[in-house]
């Protein structure tokens, strides 16, 4: 079995505080596991001070020019470790604020509330929330508190991950890489001046038209845990992985990239009612540890499969946008476009991680 603990990360023993000798064996460019998020956000502000500012306590990232009177505010957030999600998407035409929790752990209501207040332009705020129990509950509490203060808060729950059966017997589909597409397109709707109801409708429309499925080749190591979040044999991969290393549909032997792509696309195409002649946005997302060269090999095959079905890939996105720390793997998202969504996708965006038209 290959656990990261056995190789790149060294042995990390049980501990309740991090002794100086212990971070030395976890192979990351960090100082102290407890300060990873704070220091990274400080670096983020130092690098992108033209676009964002940071509130250190409670911790959130906000557009440098927020709030915008008369514009619907858009807030997202969740556990850290998925960078550039969400902080990298704060800026013109996308998010107004992002609330980073500890690594892989939802933020608490306090910073969500503070972020919501700081972007309130008087016409309401949308919370874009990935469907994880912790995120949903914490954003719910924050929304209650904000409403009590007179802010009109609406919530859209993102659940694009077809790996999980959406039934009464699960917590429902998870929100994964499709979130990026929701944030971009919804952000454009808010930027053009849509009111809260219209912005919510756009977010729900994108969520209803995007499906994602991922694969992991290696696990990742949460800094404060110091051990890999799961174990894969040398020749095993996990199909349907979540973005925190939660297991997926099945564990199989490694296959050629094209075969893996076919496996990822099948449940997407089964679920999304696409017809020949339809236009889609194809998004190949890296989990963090997979080189770009492999992501393009994945894109090549995915585009080929869609083309064979008469579907036109008219927009595309390839890169590490919704990551799981250094996990090797990728996810494929397909978004069914129409003229409105295409125009909103093409609209200017100026964030640290996604930028065009400005």
């Amino acid at each position, binding site marked *: 079995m290959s656990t990261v603990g056995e190789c790149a990360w060294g042995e990390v023993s*049980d*501990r*309740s505080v991090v002794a100086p000798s212990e971070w030395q064996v976890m192979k990351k460019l960090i100082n102290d596991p407890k300060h990873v998020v704070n220091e990274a956000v400080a670096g983020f502000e130092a690098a992108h001070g033209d676009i964002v500012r940071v509130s250190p306590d409670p911790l959130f990232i906000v557009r440098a020019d927020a709030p915008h009177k008369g514009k619907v505010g858009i807030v997202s957030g969740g*556990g850290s470790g998925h960078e550039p999600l969400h902080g990298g998407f704060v800026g013109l035409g996308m998010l107004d604020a992002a609330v980073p*929790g*500890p*690594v*892989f*752990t*939802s*933020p*608490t*209501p*306090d910073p969500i509330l503070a972020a919501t207040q700081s972007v309130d332009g008087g016409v309401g705020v949308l919370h874009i929330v990935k469907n*994880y*129990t*912790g995120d949903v*509950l*914490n954003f*719910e*509490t924050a929304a209650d508190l904000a409403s009590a203060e007179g802010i009109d808060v609406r919530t859209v729950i993102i659940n694009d991950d077809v*790996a*999980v059966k959406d039934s*009464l*017997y*699960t*917590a429902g589909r*998870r929100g994964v890489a499709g979130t990026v597409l929701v944030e971009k397109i919804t952000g454009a709707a808010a930027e053009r001046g849509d009111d809260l109801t219209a912005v919510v409708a756009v977010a729900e429309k994108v969520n209803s038209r995007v499906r994602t499925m991922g694969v992991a080749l290696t696990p990742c190591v*949460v800094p*404060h*845990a110091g*051990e890999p*979040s*799961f174990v894969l044999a040398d020749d095993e991969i996990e199909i349907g992985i*979540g973005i*925190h*290393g*939660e*297991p*997926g549909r099945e564990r199989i032997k490694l296959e050629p990239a094209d075969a893996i792509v076919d496996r990822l696309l099948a449940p997407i195409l089964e679920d999304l009612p696409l017809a020949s002649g339809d236009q889609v946005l194809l998004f190949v997302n890296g989990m963090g540890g997979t080189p770009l060269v492999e992501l393009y090999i994945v894109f090549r095959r995915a585009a080929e499969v869609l083309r064979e079905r008469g579907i036109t890939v008219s927009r595309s996105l390839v890169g590490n946008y919704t990551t799981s720390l250094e996990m090797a793997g990728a996810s494929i998202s397909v978004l069914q476009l129409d003229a409105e969504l295409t125009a909103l996708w093409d609209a200017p965006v100026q964030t640290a991680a996604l930028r065009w038209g400005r």
Partner: protein
Amino acid sequence: MSPDAGRNSDQADGALTLDTAWTVRWIRRSAEILAAERTALNTLDRDIGDGDHGENMDRGFQAVLPKLDGLADDANPSAVLKLLATTLISTVGGAAGPLYGTAFLKAAGATAATGTLDSLALVALLTAARDGIVLRGKAGAGDKTMIDAWSPAVDAAQAAQSAGESAPAVLTAAADAAARGAQDTEPLVAHKGRASYLGERAIGHRDPGAQSTALLLRAAADATRVMD
């Protein structure tokens, strides 16, 4: 309230009353146990979740400790529980933060005007906590969540109270039932929380939230005895 206020609540008959000092001792003992079990809870959560449950609980209970010293001298158990609830809500995060936060908020509500908790009040406290979690998380029995520790605990407390047991005995019954309930999550498939993504693969693993609930109720029982 002085830090060692908890030491002086012995009664003439040798049993401890479940007063404000007990509530504070409960929290202190919980923090102690959660710190010791932090890694074990993380490991349970790594098996069928995301490996942070021990981290989350430890962070929350460590955060409440310094605040206990700032409690008003006339704080009642309800006020202490409310402080715990708001602290957990604002420091734990994840699923457990809002769920335990709501639990203790409801527990505070159920014990509002009481200075000393008798067995009946204890049952009300535990029931309100459990109901709060169900309200927020919508989990039922057998969904492999902390509810599978809370519900048997509430039932056992109720039975003990009906049988005329003392408040400490009611708590011991609840703690024992919660421990069994946590253990009994092992053969289950999960229908809520992250473990639900695992399907059959969750079988054989104990739910971390059920385990932390068992630890919290054990701490409550421990707190009825003098500790050093």
